[in-house]
Each structure stands twice: as structure tokens, then as C-alpha cells.
């Protein structure tokens, strides 16, 4: 018992671990909450593309802001909003299939980002941080900003719950109810964009889609109603974040990847276990 407690408390003597844990839990929960819609609407590829297409913005922020985290965040947010609305517009009217158009743009944006970053001297380290996150480098200012944005995104999801649900389940009904459908579609894209940017420091660009999709997918297998799915997704994400971060502390492995791997293991266990709703589906 005492041993287990020591294992749990030992990492907490370091302030960076405490900050990292808070950041990981909050971003994990936030990603899972918004990710519920990503899973239900089949937007995983959109989420992945969005995360990657932020890279050139981050690179610019990095080069122009001299490595300041604030600059990175705001450049990232600006790019994400542009990319989200751009992809949204692209998917509405066009001769190319949506996933083709997204694929073209996101690989191009990613390449532009890598080219920009490669002009910097500390290219490898910087790129790694952007790609895979740097949760143990989270500062107090980052935490405050994270808290504010998490509260905002959470509030929007709760306040517009019924509208976001209707446009996701039955967009035609949304129109006949005379809701401003386009507005809410864009609101959802903006929510995903903001969430991705907020979570960037925890898992980075490359693994972001896992934070959006994996805990929500696990919860989808286990629940019957959307509020329950959301709550369970958030809980699973928070749990995966804590377990992953401890694993990364003791095994000395990359923290963002450890968090994602934990969430993946949880998903696989649930998917393969006979209790999941997926196996008993009518």
C-alpha cells in the first residue's frame, strides 16, 4: 500500500509533472468531449487534416515569435480557424470528393510547415515538439490559457447541445426547424479547431487525431445515449492521460505517445471484450 502510494506521489514532487498532469487531463477531456462529435459525424480524417494543416502557421509563429509559446498558440489558432472554415467550404461544394480535397490540402500544408521549420537551426528539436507535443514543458501561463479555453469550449458544447446534436443527426430536420444550420456547422468546425490548438502542447500535431477519436470511440462502444457517451469519453481520456503520463515518467518514454498508447489499449480491451455494445448490436 505504502509502496503504491509512493509510486503515485513520487512524480508529483516535480512542478513540471504536476503542470503536465493537469494539462494532460484537461486537454484529454476536452478533446474527448469535442471528439464525440468527430466520431459520430465520421470526421476523423477532417480532425487529422486540421491538426496537420496548422503546422505552417505554427512554423511562422515560431520563426517570427522567437520561440514564444504565446506566439505559437495564437498563430496556431489563426491557422486552425482558417483551415477549418476552408475545409468546411471545400467539402460543401466541389467536384472533388471531400476526402480527396482534404488530402491534397493537408499534405501540402504539412510540407509547407516542414519547409518553414527547416530554415531554423534547431530544426529537429522544434519539429519534434510540434509534431509530438511537449506536455512536460507546460508553463503556468500555458495552464491559465488552457483553463480559459477549456471553459469556453465546454460552455459552448453545453449551451448549444441540442442544436449541435440536431445538425449532426439530422441536418434536414435542422433546416425545417429553421435553425441557422450553416452557422452551427461552422461553430462545430471552430470548436474542433480551437480544441486541436489547445491540445497541441500535450500530444502535438501527429497524434492529435487519436485524442479526438480514441476515447470517444471507446465510449461509443459502451453507451446508449449521447450525454453518457460524452461523460464516459471524458473520463476515459482523463484516465488515459494520467496513466500514460505516469508510464512515461517511470519508463522514460515520450509522454504524448504514452498517453495515446494508453487510450488505444483501453479501446482495444473494450472492443475485444464481450461486454461492449458493439458485439451485441442488433
Amino acid at each position, binding site marked *: 500500500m505504502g509502496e503504491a502510494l509512493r509510486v503515485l506521489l513520487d512524480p508529483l514532487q516535480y512542478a513540471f509533472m504536476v503542470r503536465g498532469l493537469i494539462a494532460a487531463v484537461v486537454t484529454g477531456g476536452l478533446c474527448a468531449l469535442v471528439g464525440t462529435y468527430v466520431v*459520430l459525424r465520421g470526421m476523423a480524417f477532417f480532425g487529422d487534416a486540421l491538426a496537420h494543416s496548422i503546422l505552417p502557421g505554427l512554423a511562422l509563429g515560431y520563426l517570427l515569435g522567437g520561440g514564444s509559446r504565446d506566439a505559437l498558440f495564437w498563430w496556431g489558432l489563426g491557422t486552425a480557424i482558417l483551415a477549418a472554415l476552408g475545409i468546411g467550404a471545400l467539402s460543401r461544394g466541389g467536384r472533388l470528393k471531400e476526402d480527396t480535397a482534404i488530402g491534397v490540402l493537408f499534405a501540402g500544408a504539412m510540407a509547407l510547415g516542414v519547409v518553414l521549420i527547416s530554415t531554423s537551426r534547431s530544426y529537429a528539436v522544434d519539429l519534434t515538439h510540434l509534431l509530438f507535443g511537449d506536455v512536460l514543458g507546460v508553463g503556468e501561463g500555458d495552464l491559465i490559457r488552457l483553463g480559459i479555453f477549456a471553459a469556453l469550449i465546454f460552455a459552448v458544447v453545453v449551451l448549444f447541445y*441540442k442544436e449541435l446534436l*440536431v445538425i449532426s443527426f*439530422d441536418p*434536414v430536420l435542422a433546416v*425545417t426547424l*429553421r435553425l441557422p444550420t450553416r452557422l452551427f456547422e461552422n461553430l462545430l468546425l471552430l470548436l474542433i479547431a480551437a480544441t486541436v490548438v489547445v491540445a497541441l502542447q500535450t500530444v502535438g500535431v501527429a497524434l492529435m487525431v487519436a485524442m479526438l477519436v480514441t476515447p470517444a470511440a471507446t465510449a461509443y462502444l459502451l453507451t446508449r*445515449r*449521447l450525454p453518457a457517451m460524452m461523460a464516459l469519453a471524458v473520463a476515459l481520456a482523463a484516465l488515459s492521460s494520467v496513466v500514460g503520463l505516469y508510464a512515461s515518467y517511470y519508463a522514460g518514454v515520450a509522454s504524448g505517445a504514452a498517453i495515446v498508447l494508453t487510450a488505444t489499449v483501453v479501446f482495444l480491451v473494450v472492443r475485444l471484450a464481450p461486454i461492449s455494445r458493439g458485439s451485441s448490436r442488433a
Partner: protein
Amino acid sequence: MALVKLWQKVTLQERDRVHLSGEPIVEVSRVSMRYDGVVALEDVSFAVKAGERIAIVGPNGAGKSTLLRIIAGVLTPTTGSVRIYGRGPGGHLCIAYIPQRNQVDWNFPLTVADVVMMGRIGKMGLLRHPGPRDWAMVRRALEQVGMADLADRPIRALSGGQQQRMFIARALAQEAELLLMDEPFTGLDRPAQEGILEILEHLRRQGVTILLATHDLEQAASHFDRVLLLNRRLIAFGPPDAVFTPEALRAAYGGHLRLVPVEGELVAVGDTCCEGG
């Protein structure tokens, strides 16, 4: 808050007044629809009186779904106009559109009551949550379609007939006066179809106007006041026995309808029906 209530009261009274003005509930004038140069509807005009039940029949690709969606205000016609009680569909909350069953994600984590409650959202307003009145309306709507005991059932566990009845309940919760149904009978067995027809009979007594797309010509003839025969153009519109003439049917279906003479009358034994037409 009081101002909002007052405003809602004023606007609702305005809507009621318009509804009582004796105009046709649906008036379609010279509607044409083209997608990327392909003609889906061509110069369609007709009017429907309140309380009527209209069956829309025609081969696959005849534009049945397009027409329903234009009346619902979901699509805007390329030319022509639709008036609901004399105004554009966009100003009305009283129109319910029931999609084809294969256009719905039945694995969405929702219960029957959740879906029916969606019908209330238009009247609830932003930032509001369902109140006791909304729940009462949902309960009553489910009772009317005989699904009160299935309120908490996940939608993925419903049969085809139950899926349709749930959507009718949602239209009732929406307080719809105009019900647009896109092939509700496709893929349903006879008892389930009969169940839906029985509910539609109840709705008629409540004065709900129904426009229903179907492939079943016999049902169209036996359960509807008027039939609208469509193949991009409006071929015929009137009482079933006036519409179902060999000439009109051939004009609509070409060679795709089997007409069999039975006791001196021509009987259509099936059209090109299949899923998702």
C-alpha cells in the same frame, strides 16, 4: 425574458392568423430544379388543400424526393416558387420532413424520446432546455403512434415500422400541419405498412396535410385523396381513378411498369421500386 415571451406570442399569433386565411396549404408554381445541368424537375405546378392526403408516385429518379425537399424549404428551386399558406417555406415551423430510412444513422447514441424531442427544438429557442410542456408533448406524440413504452429504447434497436412511427411522433411533437414523407413504406412488411396507414388516418382527423412519396400504386389508390404522378414533369394530378389511366401510367413509367389486364381493367403489378429511389 418577458420581452422574449411577448415576442414569441406575437409572432405565433401572426403565424396562426396567416394559417387561417383560406389559402391552399401548399402551392407549387412552375417549379424547376436542375443539378449541374441535369433536370430533376421541370415546370411543376399544383396546389394542395389543408387536410388532404396526397400520394406522389413515379419511377426512380422522377424527382419525388427533390419535390418534397423543395416544399420543405430544404432545397431552393432553380426557378418557380413554393408557397405554404401564402408564404415561403422558410417562414414556417409547421412543416415536417420524414427522410428515407436509409438516410439516417441508426447507430447514433439516441433513444426514441431523444429523437422525438428534437421536434420541439424549433419552438424552444436558443439556450433553452426542454421543459415539462415539451416532455408532455413528446409523451403524447409517442402515445399517438403507439410507442409510449419504447420511449427509452435506443434507436438502433427499432424495427423499420417503429423507425417510421418514431419520425411521425417527432412531426407531432413539432406540431406539424404539413407532413412530408419520403417513401415510408419501402422495405416495410405489410403489417408495419398497415400500422403507418392507420396512424395517417388519425392524423387526417386532426387536419394534418400529408404528402407522401411511394412506389406502391395500389396503396396510393386506396388510401389517398389525390395522386400526383410525376416523372420530372407533372404527368397527372387528381383522384386516383382519374390519374391511374393506361396513358398516364405509360407516360410516367414508359416500359418500366407492368400492366396486366384483370377483368377488363388494367392493373399495375409493380413499378421499378427499389431501395433509395
